[in-house]
């Protein structure tokens, strides 16, 4: 019986002949089958995975050098393109679509001999936080199937949580990797804007979107990041700064003392579960005792984060999603109607209710008479967020903040009141508004038995210190809570 703990350990098991890639693939395919009721996967690439595993086993037997991710079982969210494989954003409008090319991130995983085991369920176009807005139906939380896994990358989170893949790629526009990681008790990393190419990632809000990583260890997240990050001819917004050797550098300093900021407005926010707030305050006390500098920083913009986020992302979405016209791809009835009605009928049949809501709001904030009052205003406030965070990072290495105000909610509440659902994004959208890296670490268990995380944010391009500090935190404080 195969038991996964880390990529490094898996590779030594392979080297020592204690397992083969093919056995491990069969193990994961079996687990995926047993857990089909979680609805985490949309498509499973069983035969291809077996083929690749057999090839890797042969190469290892013949001492042919294989890649850094040889035999590593990875799932990818259904918004990331994989050539000749289905890609639908969990939307009816992309029913039957097969990608003509692979995302840069996918190409880089494959080049290191990773095995892509399947595509995972998500909220339609990444719009949602409970994985309940999917044409394939909701995803269930492995720890408690009456609860949601969070979203929008719910299927990816559950695939790692339930041991259906070793790591998974998701996407994070306002918390869609960190929030489900929090709810599922695993690690969720959103790198800074421009760290990973967005080529082949279906666009929701292009100035917010980033591919993110779900894993069980920091070292695994570091390895995946190292492989998929860096400049790309097909995405000119990617940073040209050199990508550090995250895995090698990870443990170079294990006892470094950091300057840590926390935001009282965040920890005393009325929406925050008291127990979550107290656990994080406890963690801050521990850190202080261990000689890190811990200080409160005033952050009075906090309550503007969510409305600013929704103005800008719905505006970008209304523009990005205009490409779904039912002509070049997608669904269409091809009735004999006027062209405008043809578009309307295709789009109305293809998009779900949450996507339509956001397109309508986005169209509103961009329309004549409202553009300056909402869209330009939100861009100005986005600048204020960036300025304020720059000031914080002048003096501090990290900001510690909750990931989500509450633990995983019961299924079936996503459509009740959109605003109350949106407000739960309060802690995660800050990193996307400002383009900084952030991570959710599974440090805590609530008395209601559900896991929750703590979020660490770092300055732009500071993924390495973020990963180092995260590693330190998980090793040192995991047992304490």
């Amino acid at each position, binding site marked *: 019986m195969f038991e996964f703990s880390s990529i490094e350990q898996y590779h030594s098991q392979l080297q020592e002949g204690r397992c083969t890639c093919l056995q491990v693939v069969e193990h994961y395919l079996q687990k995926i089958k047993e857990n089909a009721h979680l609805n985490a996967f949309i498509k499973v690439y069983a035969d291809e995975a077996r083929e690749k595993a057999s090839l890797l086993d042969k190469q290892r037997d013949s001492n042919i050098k294989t890649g850094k991710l040889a035999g590593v079982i990875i799932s990818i969210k259904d918004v990331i393109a994989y050539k000749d494989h289905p890609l639908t954003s969990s939307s009816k409008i992309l029913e039957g679509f097969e990608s003509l090319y692979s995302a840069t991130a996918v190409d880089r995983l494959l080049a290191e001999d990773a095995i892509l085991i399947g595509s995972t369920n998500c909220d339609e176009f990444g719009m949602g936080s409970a994985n309940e807005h999917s044409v394939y139906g909701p995803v269930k939380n492995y720890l408690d199937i009456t609860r949601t896994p969070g979203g929008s990358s719910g299927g990816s989170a559950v695939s790692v949580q339930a041991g259906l893949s070793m790591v998974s790629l998701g996407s994070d526009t306002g918390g869609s990797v960190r929030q489900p990681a929090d709810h599922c008790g695993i690690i969720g990393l959103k790198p800074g804007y421009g760290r990973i190419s967005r080529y082949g990632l279906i666009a929701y809000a292009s100035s917010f979107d980033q591919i993110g990583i779900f894993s069980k260890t920091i070292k695994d997240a570091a390895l995946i990041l190292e492989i998929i990050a860096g400049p790309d001819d097909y995405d000119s917004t990617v940073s040209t700064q050199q990508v550090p050797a995250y895995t090698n550098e990870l443990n170079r300093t294990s006892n470094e003392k950091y300057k840590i900021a926390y935001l009282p407005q965040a920890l005393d926010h009325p929406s925050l579960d008291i127990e979550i707030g107290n656990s994080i305050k406890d963690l801050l006390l521990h850190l202080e005792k261990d000689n890190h500098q811990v200080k409160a920083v005033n952050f009075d913009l906090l309550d503007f984060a969510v409305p600013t986020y929704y103005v800008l992302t719905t505006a970008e979405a209304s523009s990005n999603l205009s490409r779904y016209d039912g002509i*070049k791809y997608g669904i269409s009835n091809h009735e004999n109607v006027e*062209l405008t009605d043809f578009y309307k009928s295709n789009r109305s049949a293809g998009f779900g209710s949450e996507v339509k809501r956001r397109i309508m709001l986005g169209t509103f904030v961009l329309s004549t008479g409202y553009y300056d009052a909402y869209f330009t205003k939100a861009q100005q406030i986005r600048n204020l967020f960036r300025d304020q965070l720059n000031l914080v990072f002048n003096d501090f290495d990290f900001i510690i903040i909750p990931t989500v105000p509450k633990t995983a909610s019961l299924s079936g509440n996503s459509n009740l009141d959109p605003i109350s659902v949106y407000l739960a994004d309060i802690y995660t959208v800050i990193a996307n508004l400002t383009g900084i890296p952030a991570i959710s670490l599974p440090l805590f268990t609530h008395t209601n038995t559900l896991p929750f995380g703590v979020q660490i944010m770092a300055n732009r391009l500071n993924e390495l210190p973020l990963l180092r500090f995260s590693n330190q935190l998980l090793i040192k404080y995991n047992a304490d809570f």
Partner: protein
Amino acid sequence: MEVTEELINKLANLSRLKFTPEEKIDIKKDLEKMIHFIEKLNELDTTGVKPLLHMSDEVNVFRDDIVKKYISTEEGLKNAPHHNDQYFLVPKMIRQNK
């Protein structure tokens, strides 16, 4: 702000969406809530603040324009719901006056 049926119709048209009368009741209610919610932004004085337009620090990333890979006509048409061997097919746009 009050969301009128006229505004819903205008936004739906710009969005190339259509709503049934029942759906209109829901979208009107939701939009009212959402617009009320984003009106929060007015509480902040942003006089003189420049809008943030670009998230990337990179400027003018140049590369030579070389054809590296391309999609064949066949591939390009592969996902289209209606096509022949060369073109996407759409409803007739130019009609004769009757």
